[in-house]
């Protein structure tokens, strides 16, 4: 039995299909990432799985419980950390933790060893009000509160949005640590670089899942040759490159443009075709998840 099983789940808001016929499974003990831009339906999917919303059609099971029929059972088995900080800002760190522990009938002492990797970072500030914590510390507190009742499945909705790079990396280390303890973790993020730290990922856009696999496999499935090109006049380069033979796509990617090409492409004839462009550089680059995502979006 998988930790999360989703079958043809759909949810509409007015005419927008927030979640459109989504199906996938997350195995026990897996760190599963939902990768997609804002508006991809990640949050709605989380809200469906944590029983905050009812689906329009389809069904899903979390830890063996149906999200509609057994919603009460699910609530004591999952930990949910919404994208927005939603603890009580006027209670202290410790009071928040005690409060949520009490609501689940759990005990902070008993769960301490589970939350310790996260909580020890903010323990020195336990008398500080939650609203006065920094962004990264708020996330850690929210994660501690989501873990306090020893859930079997953890839902983290964009836990690293608005958090600095060091804290983000630290946060992923903590998730790896929790995974070691046997938790199933479903995490969403708009950052493609974080995808690499998941066991498996689902790329999603506009309510649909585009592809599901391990990050490595997804990159391997990028079956085109990829170049990085740059010049002094980047925009003109982009326009010209898009029209060249054998070019399937060209898009800005950091300091360079990524150029996706097929068999008809040839570097030398490409240079000639571009004509007079100052400071043109062409290098072969390895594809990333983002390249795959852009390819799938088309």
């Amino acid at each position: 039995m998988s930790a999360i099983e989703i079958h043809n789940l759909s949810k509409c808001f007015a005419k927008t299909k927030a979640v459109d016929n989504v199906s996938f499974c997350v195995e026990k003990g897996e760190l599963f990432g939902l990768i997609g831009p804002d508006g991809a339906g990640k949050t709605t999917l989380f809200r469906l799985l944590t029983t905050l919303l009812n689906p329009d059609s389809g069904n899903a099971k979390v830890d063996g419980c149906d999200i509609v029929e057994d919603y009460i059972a699910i609530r004591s088995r999952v930990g949910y950390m919404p994208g927005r900080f939603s603890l009580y800002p006027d209670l202290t760190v410790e009071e928040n933790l005690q409060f949520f522990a009490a609501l689940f009938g759990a005990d902070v002492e008993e769960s301490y060893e589970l939350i310790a990797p996260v909580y020890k970072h903010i323990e020195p500030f336990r008398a500080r009000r939650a609203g006065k914590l920094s962004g990264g510390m708020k996330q850690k507190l929210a994660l501690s509160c989501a873990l306090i009742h020893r859930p079997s499945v953890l839902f983290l909705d964009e836990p690293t949005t608005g958090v600095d790079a060091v804290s983000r990396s630290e946060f992923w280390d903590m998730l790896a640590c929790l995974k070691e303890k046997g938790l199933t973790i479903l995490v969403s993020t708009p950052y493609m670089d974080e995808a690499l730290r998941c066991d498996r990922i689902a790329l999603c856009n506009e309510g649909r899942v585009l592809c599901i696999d391990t990050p490595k496999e997804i990159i391997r499935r990028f079956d085109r040759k990829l170049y990085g090109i740059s010049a002094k006049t980047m925009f003109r380069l982009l326009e010209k490159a898009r029209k060249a033979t054998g070019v399937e796509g060209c898009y800005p990617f950091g300091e360079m443009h990524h150029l996706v090409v097929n068999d008809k492409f040839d570097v030398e004839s490409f240079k000639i075709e571009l004509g007079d462009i100052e400071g043109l550089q062409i290098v072969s680059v390895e594809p990333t998840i983002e390249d795959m995502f852009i390819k799938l979006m088309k």
Partner: protein
Amino acid sequence: MRTFIVLLQKEFLQIRRNSFLPRLIIAFPVLVMLLMPLIMTMDVRNVNVALVDLDLSVVSRRIASHIEASEYLDLIETTAEYQLAIEALEQGEVDVIVQIPDNFERDMMLSAPERISIIANAVNATKGGIGMQYIVQTIARALAELRGENAPVGFSELMTVENRYNPTLDYRHYMIPALMIILFILICGFLPALSIVGEKESGSIEQINVTPVSRFTFILSKLVPYWIIGLFVLTVAIIVARLVYGLEPAGSVWAIYLGALLFIFTISGFSLTVANFSETMQQTMFVMFFFIMIFMLMSGLLTPVDSMPEWAQRFTLILPPRYFVEILRSVYLKGTSIAELWVNYVALALFAFVFNTLAAVTYKKQI
């Protein structure tokens, strides 16, 4: 049960942490009870009177001294020229003009003397009307006194007047119960709604919704603190009324508390219903304000229901405060018992049931 206590503790902790609420809860009833009764008075005092005395007789002087002696009337001008008095009236210096015609004393004993005329500024209808009555009474008393002195056998007074239940016709005694209700509406109506919508705004309600806490427990934990605060505020108000205005309930205190309890249930259920339909505090404030205006103006808090038009009177039947107003006033001023007011208690209980059911039904834990 343990969950409920935890939720309650959290609620009180939050109220205490709030920099504003605890002060509001103490200061609000005290201030309202101390200040409002002094300001919100319908008693007409300081009616400025100009006397146009064309008679200059014993009678006219007697009338003047009676006006001067009245605690409601101020004789500010005595003149022989009507024109001067009218000018003063136009400038607002004078509220009422009393004109005593020439030879009034002489003609008094005739069958049809020229009459004393009274002209009042009725821009403020209450002041004009009531001021006019005071003048008429004062003059009548002066004339009766004179006739009594002149008659061989003393005139006996033909009328006696008694104001039951509020013997001194003190408007405050009528207003204080109404003020207590306004306090309730504000504290038990506004605060719980704002506190729930506040959780919606901060998103913490979402975190609560994924816990096994039932919606009933959660909602109750939001209400109970304000029920307790409401009863505390009532107690403060009763004590202030006793100490400052010497107003003690003529009936049983329990009759007041029972009514208050039912009314608090009603108004907090109502505020929850409003909260369930609002997403932001602003929205809640405006919707609540709309209803509170209707409650204040139409429930007989400020003006008696009996003097409203027929259709409005029928409309007041669906306003919960109307019943509580009646309970409070009757118990406070007349000493009416619970048994005699049972209709009002039943009506309140019914409202409490309806609004709380509505609140429970419209609160969706799953959106």
